[in-house]
């Protein structure tokens, strides 16, 4: 089915696939870090569970929650990307991802550093949907900073 270009860049097949069958979905046993993310504007909500080893490596990460295709796919992709990374690497990836999705849509982005996350760059043409793509990452930051609830809008 033919879609307008921006729509097909937003809803790429990879995103639809991660939305239909999110990876690392569900609760995690014995997590070391937990946080809840909430977007009061749209009601999107997710719980993020991490198990971080003493050496600072993210051993496992899982999530649960309700949300739109973009926020589910973003959370799913995030868990794949950060699993096995150090906390410092995960934070660095968030900062690169954040500046990429909040940049002007015509700006060139160094996609090499973003891995699979590049499929989310389509949100740049949809300013109202950027929060959907970053909710999981803000929740990650919250979890690493002591947990609790983070709200974005």
């Amino acid at each position, binding site marked *: 089915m033919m879609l307008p270009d921006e729509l097909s860049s937003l809803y790429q097949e990879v995103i639809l696939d991660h*939305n239909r069958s999110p990876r690392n979905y569900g609760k995690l046993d014995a997590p070391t870090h937990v946080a809840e993310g909430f977007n009061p504007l*749209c009601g999107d909500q997710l719980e993020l569970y991490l198990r971080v080893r003493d050496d600072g490596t993210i051993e496992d990460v899982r999530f649960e929650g309700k949300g739109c*295709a973009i926020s589910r796919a973003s959370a799913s992709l995030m868990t794949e990307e950060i699993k096995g990374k150090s906390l410092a690497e995960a934070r660095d990836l968030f900062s690169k991802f954040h500046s990429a999705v909040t940049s002007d849509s015509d700006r060139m982005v160094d996609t090499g550093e973003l891995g699979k996350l590049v499929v989310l760059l389509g949100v740049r043409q949809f300013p109202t949907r950027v929060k959907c793509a970053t909710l999981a990452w803000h929740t990650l930051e919250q979890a690493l900073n002591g947990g609790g609830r983070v709200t974005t809008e």
Partner: protein
Amino acid sequence: MPMSLPEVTVDYDVERIRADFPILGVKPYGKQLVYLDNAATTHKPRCVIEEMSNYYATMHSNVHRGIHYLSEQATAAYERARETVQHFIGAARREEIVFTRGTTESINLVASSWGGANLRAGDEIVLTVFEHHSNIVPWQLVAERTGAKLRVIPLESDGSLSVERTLDAITERTRIVSIAHVSNVLGCIVPVEILIAQAHRVGAVVLLDGAQAVAHCSVNVRQLDCDFYAFSSHKVYGPTGIGVLYGKFELLDRMPPYQGGGDMIRRVTFERTTYNELPYKFEAGTPPIAEAIGLARALEYLGSIGVVAIAEWERRLVEHCCNLLAGIEGVHILGPQSDRAAVVSFVADGVHPHDIATFLDREGIAIRAGHHCAQPLMDFFGIPASSRFSVAMYNTPDEIERAADALRKCLYVLR
């Protein structure tokens, strides 16, 4: 498709109405605009835009105090606007019409002023589950101040109010019942007459939140016998920034002022200040003059087409919409099916409302997705959000079909 179009009424010329709304010519992403977010705000006919522009070009001045030509003109126009509102909703006296910033401020005024003066610990404020946040939070604030309690009438599983549970909730402890005349999510027209009679029987007063009602059904406050009625101009084809609080004279007269400032006083000294008469006691500061004039023009325009004719047209659009949505697999319409005014909210299996809204937006179709400022109602249905199509006098069956087609396409792609 085996759907029957709404019958064309000879006296309802939707194309002529559409020609009065310049914004309908906007082409989002090069597509013909289909505006189905009318419960959020309605568009303005050219006559309203021109009336306000003309006011600024020929008449603008401050009201009620200037001893000069322009001020007299502006004051007369502002007070004429009040009378237009009075007659439109069938109020007995012009003093019963207070201009506010909108429905939200109207409700806050009653909660703060009437509630502050009349509520005591243990008194009950009766609401329903489907109230808009603006008819919940002001009552929570005054309940905290006074020790009064909120009592929420439970809904039936389809989201409707049963007479029995409504009557049960309104008791001798009830001081005020504050309820939407039409739900902004379910679109149901609430059978308020029974509720008002019961409230009066126990000595309570009733506020109706008419934000979603005035543009879509005939409202006569004297026939309803409600004590307060609140609505916003921008949802009845008028400008933003102004709304109306109707209150029965005896009630408003006994209430303390809401805000202090110019225009609401008679005499100010540091020892003692006396307040102005109604309605000025509740209109502190320079009022939204151009907006009042714009609102009056919008109501005249609405009246010239006829609320009854519009309601009938919208009823057919809504019926057509419900029929089309019911034919799409995995789409569930929220709320009772009968007595629905202008609003159809729904959820679709497997696809989030925000994805639907983004998808439709790129087809030029404006809808609303989210909790619609009614989180308790979303909780009641166990959903985080829903999508909403809401119609106005200028929508057409063809637009409803375009929206339904786009929804079908969206679900096919995203599922």
